[in-house]
């Protein structure tokens, strides 16, 4: 069973629909026992990193997530809270990925939020099996995880940043695979096959 972590950070429907389209069985839950016993855990998230950390804390899920040993995929803010620290609300996060999350600085040539389709490269994980560098995926974010030793995909918006991260069984994508067309569907499928 796949668990979609419900910690009140935005609508989960897109992720649910992506799993449905792939024929996967899942449950949406904030129950620690269900999460611990799941084969895979998905942690989506739209919104504010500090609020996301607060919600994880108040649901007593911080240690639960950190102790998971099966594959976990954080998406967007779900990934950012798995990093060391976020500038958004100046909050210490789960410290699974060795990256800090910083804000894009808008300039004449740089729109913030980084919104739309951008290419990913330097792909280094089974998560990207069958996907070539240079494929486009869909991003919507104003904060980004810096490059670090856990980076398994990069993208560029004014600066190079981590489009995906991996540490042991923990994976994260800054982009939205559930909104990234066929490429995104393949990434989710690859995650389910880990």
């Amino acid at each position, binding site marked *: 069973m796949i668990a979609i972590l419900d910690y009140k950070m*935005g*609508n989960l*429907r*897109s992720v649910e*629909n*992506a799993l*449905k*389209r792939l024929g996967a069985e899942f449950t949406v839950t904030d129950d620690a026992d269900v999460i611990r016993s799941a084969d895979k855990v998905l942690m989506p998230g*739209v*919104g*504010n990193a500090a609020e996301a950390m607060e919600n994880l804390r108040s649901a007593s899920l911080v240690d639960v997530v950190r102790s998971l040993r099966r594959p976990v995929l954080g998406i967007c803010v779900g990934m950012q809270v798995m990093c060391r620290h976020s500038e958004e609300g100046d909050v210490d996060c789960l410290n699974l990925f060795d990256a800090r999350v910083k804000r894009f600085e*808008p300039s*004449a040539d740089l*729109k*913030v*939020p*980084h*919104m*739309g*389709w*951008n290419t990913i490269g330097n792909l280094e994980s089974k998560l990207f099996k069958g996907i070539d560098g240079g494929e*486009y995926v*869909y*991003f*919507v*974010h*104003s904060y980004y995880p810096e490059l670090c030793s856990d980076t398994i995909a990069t993208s*560029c*918006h004014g600066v190079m940043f981590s489009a995906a991260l991996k540490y042991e069984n923990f994976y994260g994508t800054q982009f*939205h695979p*559930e*909104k*990234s*067309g*066929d490429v*995104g*569907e393949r990434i989710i499928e690859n995650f389910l096959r880990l």
Partner: protein
Amino acid sequence: MVAKRIIPCLDVKEGRTVKGVNFVDLRDVGDAVELGQYYARCGADELVYLDISATREGRQTFTKLVERISDGINIPFTVGGGISTLEDAARLLDAGADKISINSAAIANPSLIDSIAARYGSQFVVVAIDARLMDDGVWRATTHGGSRPSDKELFSWAQEAQERGAGEILFTSMNHDGTRSGYPCETFARLADRLSIPIIASGGAGSVADIAEVLTVGKADAALAASIFHFGEITVGDLKQELKRLNIDVRC
């Protein structure tokens, strides 16, 4: 670099898409999900569904439809039309919309932008501005399909919308909409220079060259079009190939 986006716009009335020819490989061009999937296959980067229903029943049908769209489409989509309260926005978010577009309601009640953005994030809020160049040389935001000028001037209103939390501006020139004579690119460029959020250009595209111009000279981040796609004059895929040949960064 983030690619320039091409966004087909689908009008929905009483739960059915209106306008549009019978594409050869579609069973039912009036089915919003099927038409959306067709555009997604062709390479559309996002979709906009605009509810033009006049009745309350039509609006309820639209919410059901948004659920089906969310089930069946794997690219982002925006919904607009008749959204005037936080509750409307919440209902459409729950139905699976990635973004909502607000227009007249934001002019009547600008704090609607703040409340939706604060609750669901800026990425969820597109502020649509239908502006008309008046005789005194001022671009004025209009309501009710362009028929009523408001007290909002385009540039200051767009900036205000950004400050209140809009994630994108969808700008339509009512002087150009439906004329197929191209976009007011200088105005688009001035708007882009004043804003830090993305701008979607709408209304006026008659050719690939028009779209190319607004994405380069006009500095728009995305182009939204309806009739050139619906009437099968050019496919989304062919348009993007043409843009790519013109060295415009598009996903294809």
